[in-house]
């Protein structure tokens, strides 16, 4: 079979999405795919480009990976710019002079930043904000700079201004138009946004035209129309984008009057073998400068190539985002330009909130909306708009603060199956319903199956609403009960134990449960009791509640022997202590291995040996490492600024501080943490429940990552924190997790199941929306203050020591625990080897 030659020019987000979608199709085998990528690396996430300044690396932002393309059988040409298309001969020529023929061609060349032709704009300290290389250049220029100016007050311009601010510069925004974000916002909204941004320390100059940029004493002087001047060290142009259509122009494809490659509903250009997708394309005289419509075009072309029919008929350009910490939303006809449009406006000057709904003349349909300062109504308004749903009798209630109780909620039931719930991943209500009917019973499972709400997360409340409603419709009770013995969730039980000050399992079982309990509820309740009251887990009433690992404070291995892990905070250990570990291991013939958490694991201890081993370890100054518990395990660290030439903070000292603070905290599942001394991230903090990465100005806090079976990168939670704030946030985050998570739920799954996700978590922890902050801190202070090394207590208590007997009626050993030597160390004997040992020679 002769394959069709498919060439894709451009490897941005949309180009990548096209390739990713094609790869999922069996038809991909029909094509020999070649990709021209002008940049030195494959596609990356430009939507989150600014996070590059907040600690994300190029690798974190990567979407396409060289190996992945290879696996898909694609040929990726990096650093290769296509310079000409010969449509007669069907040839593409690259900058290096190579020619390649095509049968089908997809143009995904994207856009380029528009730089107004102001005299002096080519100065070396003038930048644009588009690629990682641009950002590197801006960062380098900011090092000896005080002031930075962004030309352009649109969405991207404000992003850039935020970046300059984060780089420590005094930031200015210069906008030619009368207001900020004039495409998305009306005057009122724009004014409120301006006030908020100015209060954050960014100077805003609207209605200002720059006439000249010139050098002045090593700095740049901007001269504005009307004579005003501004001195700055660098300028970032972010005055809009222009479709990258030069290649199409030279190839003679039809273009729009103001640029853009004209496409039809098939995304075909004026040449039927050439498609154009993303920001380079022009459909009905419009360029779509958002990623979602670009993705829709990409899927459309994949369908065409696979012989299916699909059509692109424009896209909704509604957006919701946070700019410099200010929430902004814009839906549909935000300016009320439709004939007969009427508006309802709510303004709260004290809190800087502006909301405006645009309805039709009858007030029955929503045409558009503008939200500044509070976008909590966005999702609901968007659904009214997109699905043409009749507005309620008093539509103003949709944006007014509720006088009492809940605002009127749009029932999920009123949405049609075609309603788009998640615009990031284009998931419809119908797909969510199908997933539930197909057996997904939790929000997490639905997210996994459909990818809904895994992008910006803005639709999570609506998604939960639909899932719950569908589960109820199927007659399925949403049962989060801990187990048959307690008809409560873990969170509810935690609350009961706390409020009623219940101190023992039997008391709780008697008052709120039934039966004898089981292996699910016993450890879960023991953990709650420990989180709240922090008794020794071996105190009489708590015996019998713990898994064997907690009971014997060691980790049971496959042959019934245990491993022992002393705490080595931050992975820092003195030679003397290291020697003690070796001596103890040697004395008790233990297998030793270095763990991933920067400690030493000693394997093969018999039950009855544990107290002796610990006595020696404690004498040498060791403490229990809680490797057996659902609790804080380790705080991994890199060596930090003390030794490393790249380190910017003392990561070891911080790791020690954190590990010593949270050691012993019992939690719904194990907790791992790490501290890195710079953005090189050698401690792999972004794979931990709590990750801390040093910055020039303090610490960036990442949360809810994990390794293991379903690895998950942690999310950036807060930036440039001082020591005190960092600890306060971690205190609140951990205690909130301990209080509200389900049994055996890692932080990642917990967060994904929280209504509102990461943003909600930020509201609780950073903004203290629930007013819980002090209580959470006090609770943590109690846990920290009542810490005891469980092993130290145990070896001094004869009652507790009685538990560590292999047989209660003899001092003999368990003769069926047998070790053989391998690579100079003991290991458990295999079954065949045991028989051999047992047989007399």
């Amino acid at each position: 079979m002769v394959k069709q030659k498919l060439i894709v020019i451009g490897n941005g987000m949309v180009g990548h999405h096209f390739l990713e979608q094609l790869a999922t199709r069996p038809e991909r085998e029909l094509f020999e795919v070649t990709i021209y990528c002008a940049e030195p690396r494959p596609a990356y996430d430009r939507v989150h480009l600014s996070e590059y300044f907040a600690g994300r690396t190029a690798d974190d932002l990567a979407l396409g990976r060289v190996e992945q393309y290879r696996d898909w059988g694609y040929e990726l040409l990096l650093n290769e710019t296509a310079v000409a298309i010969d449509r007669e001969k069907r040839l593409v020529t690259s900058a290096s002079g190579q020619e390649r023929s095509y049968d089908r061609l997809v143009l995904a060349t994207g856009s380029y930043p528009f730089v107004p032709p102001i005299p002096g704009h080519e100065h070396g300290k003038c930048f644009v904000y588009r690629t990682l290389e641009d950002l590197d250049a801006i960062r380098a220029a900011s090092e000896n700079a005080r002031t930075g100016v962004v030309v352009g007050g649109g969405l991207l311009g404000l992003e850039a201004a935020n970046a300059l601010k984060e780089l420590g510069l005094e930031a200015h925004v210069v906008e030619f138009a009368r207001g900020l974000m004039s495409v998305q916002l009306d005057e009122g909204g724009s004014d409120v946004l301006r006030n908020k941004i100015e209060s954050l320390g960014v100077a805003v100059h609207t209605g200002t035209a720059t006439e000249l940029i010139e050098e002045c004493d090593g700095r740049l002087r901007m001269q504005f129309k009307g004579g005003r001047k501004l001195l700055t060290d660098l300028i970032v142009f972010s005055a809009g984008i222009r479709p990258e259509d030069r290649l199409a122009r030279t190839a003679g494809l039809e273009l729009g009057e103001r640029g853009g490659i004209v496409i039809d509903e098939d995304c075909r250009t004026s040449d039927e073998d050439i498609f154009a997708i993303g920001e380079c394309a022009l459909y009905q005289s419009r360029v779509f400068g958002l990623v979602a419509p670009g993705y829709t075009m990409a899927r459309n072309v994949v369908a065409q190539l696979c012989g299916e029919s699909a059509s692109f008929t424009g896209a909704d350009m509604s957006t919701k985002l946070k700019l410099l910490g200010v929430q902004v939303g814009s839906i549909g006809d935000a300016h009320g330009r439709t004939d007969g449009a009427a508006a309802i406006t709510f303004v709260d000057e004290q809190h800087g909130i502006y909301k405006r709904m645009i309805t039709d003349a009858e007030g029955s349909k929503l045409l558009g909306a503008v939200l500044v300062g509070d976008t909590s109504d966005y999702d609901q308004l968007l659904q009214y708009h997109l699905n043409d749903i009749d507005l309620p009798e008093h539509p103003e209630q949709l944006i007014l603060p509720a006088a009492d109780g809940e605002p009127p909620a749009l029932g999920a039931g009123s949405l049609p199956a075609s309603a788009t719930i998640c615009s990031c991943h284009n998931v419809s209500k119908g797909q969510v319903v199908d997933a539930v009917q197909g057996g997904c019973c939790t929000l997490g499972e639905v997210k996994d199956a459909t990818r809904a709400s895994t992008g910006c997360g803005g639709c999570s409340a609506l998604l939960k609403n639909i899932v719950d409603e569908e589960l109820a419709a199927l007659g399925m009770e949403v049962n989060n009960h801990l187990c048959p013995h307690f008809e409560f969730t873990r969170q509810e039980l935690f609350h009961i134990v706390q409020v009623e000050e219940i101190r023992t399992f039997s008391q709780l079982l008697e008052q709120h449960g039934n039966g004898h309990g089981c292996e699910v509820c016993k450890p879960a309740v023991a953990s709650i009791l420990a989180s709240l009251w922090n008794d020794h887990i071996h105190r009489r009433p708590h015996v019998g509640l713990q898994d064997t690992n907690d009971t014997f404070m060691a980790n049971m291995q496959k042959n019934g022997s245990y491993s022992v892990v002393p705490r080595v905070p931050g992975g820092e250990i003195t030679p003397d202590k290291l020697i003690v570990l070796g001596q103890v291991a040697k004395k008790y013939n233990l297998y030793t291995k270095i763990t991933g958490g920067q400690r030493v694991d000693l394997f093969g201890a018999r039950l009855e040996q544990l107290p002796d081993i610990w006595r020696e370890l404690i004498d040498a100054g060791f403490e229990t490492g809680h490797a057996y518990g659902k609790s804080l395990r380790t705080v991994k660290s890199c060596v930090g600024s003390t030794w490393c030439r790249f380190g910017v903070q003392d990561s070891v000292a911080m790791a020690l501080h954190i590990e010593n603070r949270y050691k012993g905290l019992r939690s719904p599942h194990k907790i791992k943490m790490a501290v890195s001394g710079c953005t090189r991230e050698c401690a792999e903090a972004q794979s931990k429940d709590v990750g801390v990465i040093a910055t020039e100005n303090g610490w960036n806090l990442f949360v809810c990552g994990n390794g293991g079976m379903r690895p998950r990168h942690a999310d950036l939670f807060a930036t440039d924190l001082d020591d005190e704030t960092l600890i306060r946030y971690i205190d609140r985050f951990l205690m909130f997790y301990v209080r509200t998570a389900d049994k055996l739920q890692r932080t990642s799954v917990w967060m994904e199941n929280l209504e509102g996700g990461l943003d909600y978590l930020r509201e609780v922890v950073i903004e203290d929306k629930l007013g819980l902050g002090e209580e959470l801190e006090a609770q943590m202070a109690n846990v920290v203050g009542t810490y005891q090394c469980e092993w130290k207590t145990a070896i001094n208590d004869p009652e507790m020591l009685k538990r560590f007997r292999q047989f209660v009626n003899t001092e003999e050993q368990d003769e069926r625990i047998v070790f053989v030597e391998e690579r100079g160390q003991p290991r458990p004997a295999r079954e065949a080897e045991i028989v051999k040992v047992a047989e007399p020679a």
Partner: protein
Amino acid sequence: MTEVAINPTPWQPVCQRSDLVAESGVCVLAGGVSVTGPSTPRRSIALFFIPDSDPQLYAVDNWDPIAGAGVIARGLIAEVEGELTVASPLYKQHFRLRDGQCLEDPEIRLATYPAAFDGDTVVIIPMPEPT
């Protein structure tokens, strides 16, 4: 001349009540040569003491045939559908205390042994009960 018990009893004392841990298990080594009763093979036997159940005392094999390790005494007591079980600490299968039946695998059963209190002494018969 060696004295031999006239009425040999199969019950063997294995430990004291104070050696037991309420709501949990301990392990004893039983069997072997006996002067008071018939000699039996030596076995590790797990004893579970649950004060508010009837009977209060259960004795089952300590050997977990699924894991291949002597760990049953260190399992958690779990009530499953009204029946008392012990959950293996290694792979978490449930074994019914009254007859040793594995709830997850009908083919697997732990041997059980008669156990009782004689005053403060715990006595067992170290011969598996018939199924």
